[in-house]
């Protein structure tokens, strides 16, 4: 779905936000991108749907270099993006108006627009709330609305740029449930996050620091790199940390920890 070849992106002051990044994301894959603030995660995401252009190197989306998408709307249709703060990305004055925004821009005929709005709202569990003012929704619901807005455009991939970082645990759980459902339906997901517990849901995780890709592993293997992760200011999930303290490493959830502890006891 995405292929980055030696991608660099520099700021005007000469600093590199991306430094020779090579990455491939397969269709239907769920990738987590981890890293401390300023590591280049968001810059990376913005290259994937043409919001930013690489200073050097190549970005390919669905097999085509980004530069070949002369009509940027084609690229935006292919790759949806959801940002950190739901309040700053909701445009409409009602739930259905907001989901419609992208479709209106693409010139989708009204009857089809209505069908797609109903479909997207059902996917994120907001059916029946079409006329509700977005200001009246909870944080998790607002972020699900933002996801619905991206999904209504029927993208092949969804980028989430720290989309859960401003949500309470209930909101995070709501969004992760929606992502799990979408992943099961074959959607490619690239999730930028600080939160290691969210990595547990993904197929693969990459770690970034100072614009470089440092690690590229499945979550279980990633958690074994305790010292490296600590050096890059990435905190392990609570369960994994507890396991490490108790002498059992690599536990991804409570069940695994309990199993490991009972085996030790035997």
């Amino acid at each position, binding site marked *: 779905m995405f292929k980055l070849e030696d991608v660099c992106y520099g700021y005007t002051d000469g600093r590199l936000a991306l430094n020779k990044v090579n990455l491939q994301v397969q269709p239907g894959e769920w990738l987590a991108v981890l890293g401390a603030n300023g590591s280049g995660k968001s810059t990376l995401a913005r290259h994937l749907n043409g919001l930013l252009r690489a200073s050097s190197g190549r970005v390919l989306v669905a097999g085509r270099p980004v530069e070949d998408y002369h009509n940027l*709307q084609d690229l935006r*249709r292919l790759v949806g*993006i959801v940002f950190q703060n739901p309040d*700053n*990305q909701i*445009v409409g*004055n009602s739930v*259905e108006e907001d989901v419609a925004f992208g*479709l209106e821009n693409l010139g989708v005929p009204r009857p089809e627009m*209505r069908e797609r709005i109903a479909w997207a709202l059902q996917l994120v569990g907001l059916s029946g709330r079409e006329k509700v003012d977005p200001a009246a929704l909870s944080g998790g619901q607002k972020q699900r609305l933002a996801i619905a807005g991206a999904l209504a455009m029927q993208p092949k991939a969804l980028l989430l740029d720290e989309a859960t970082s401003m949500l309470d645990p209930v909101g995070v759980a709501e969004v992760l449930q929606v992502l799990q459902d979408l992943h099961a339906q074959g959607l490619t997901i690239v999730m930028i996050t600080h939160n290691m517990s969210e990595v547990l849901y993904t197929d693969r995780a990459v770690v970034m620091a100072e614009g470089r890709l440092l690690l590229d592993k499945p979550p279980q293997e990633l958690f074994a790199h305790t010292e490296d992760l600590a050096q890059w200011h990435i905190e392990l999930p609570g369960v994994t940390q507890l396991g490490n303290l108790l002498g059992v490493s690599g536990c991804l959830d409570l069940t695994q920890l309990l199993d490991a502890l009972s085996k030790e006891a035997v």
Partner: protein
Amino acid sequence: MGAKKGGVRFGSYYPVNSLIHRLDPRAKILAMLIFMLGIFMVNKFWVFGLVYLFGFIMLALAHIPPGKALNSVRGLLVLLLFTSLINMFFTPGEQILWQYGPLHLTMEGLLRSGLMLLRLVALIAFSGLLTFTTTPIELADALESLLKPFQRLGMPVHEFAMMMTIALRFIPVLLEEADKIVKAQRSRGADFSSGSLKRRLNSIIAVIVPLLYNALKRADDLAIAMEARAYIGGEGRVSLRELQWRLTDGLALATVLLFVVFLFVSHWLKWGI
């Protein structure tokens, strides 16, 4: 501004289902413009009687309590009284009823002041018929549609409507933010209600600066989010909300137009005061 977080009633929209509420907003805007123009032509008391009768019938059809329409007048009462008094005591005339220094009360002044008061009250009270019965979004859509011909002259009609829509969307967000900043500053000792003027101004600046900074940050984020959702301006855009001009819209506009024609004719009638 009657903006509230979460349910949101901006301006004065009165949410009931009435014949007037259901009219196409473009018909309501045009009818209101014509009606306001007609009111300016009225120069007789008996015609004002008919204007008020017409206005109250419209309010009844819109299921709006007359008191609600007259409430908007209350806010401008001082201004209305001031205008009336100026007209009353400074209009020259032949039939002087009372005089004190430069002040003089004439029959012409009394009549002119009465007509002025009736005109202003009618303008304020009945202009609410548009905002009581039309949501701000409908108004933005209607304005975009009505101003479309000016697009050929280079007027950024779509952008103007989009700005209105976004401004409306962000009013509750910014109100909530202002509330948070006020609380944060209060917790750090800011005092907005007592102290010298300078001190109070400083406290207000401590709210306005972060609010403005955050608003600009939000605007930047929103622009990126809109771009990410394929927004490239009005070209090729299809709006979800469709305005439909029906027979009732034409009839309603024609009724107002006929009444306004009568108001224009009455201007030149010789009889009645």
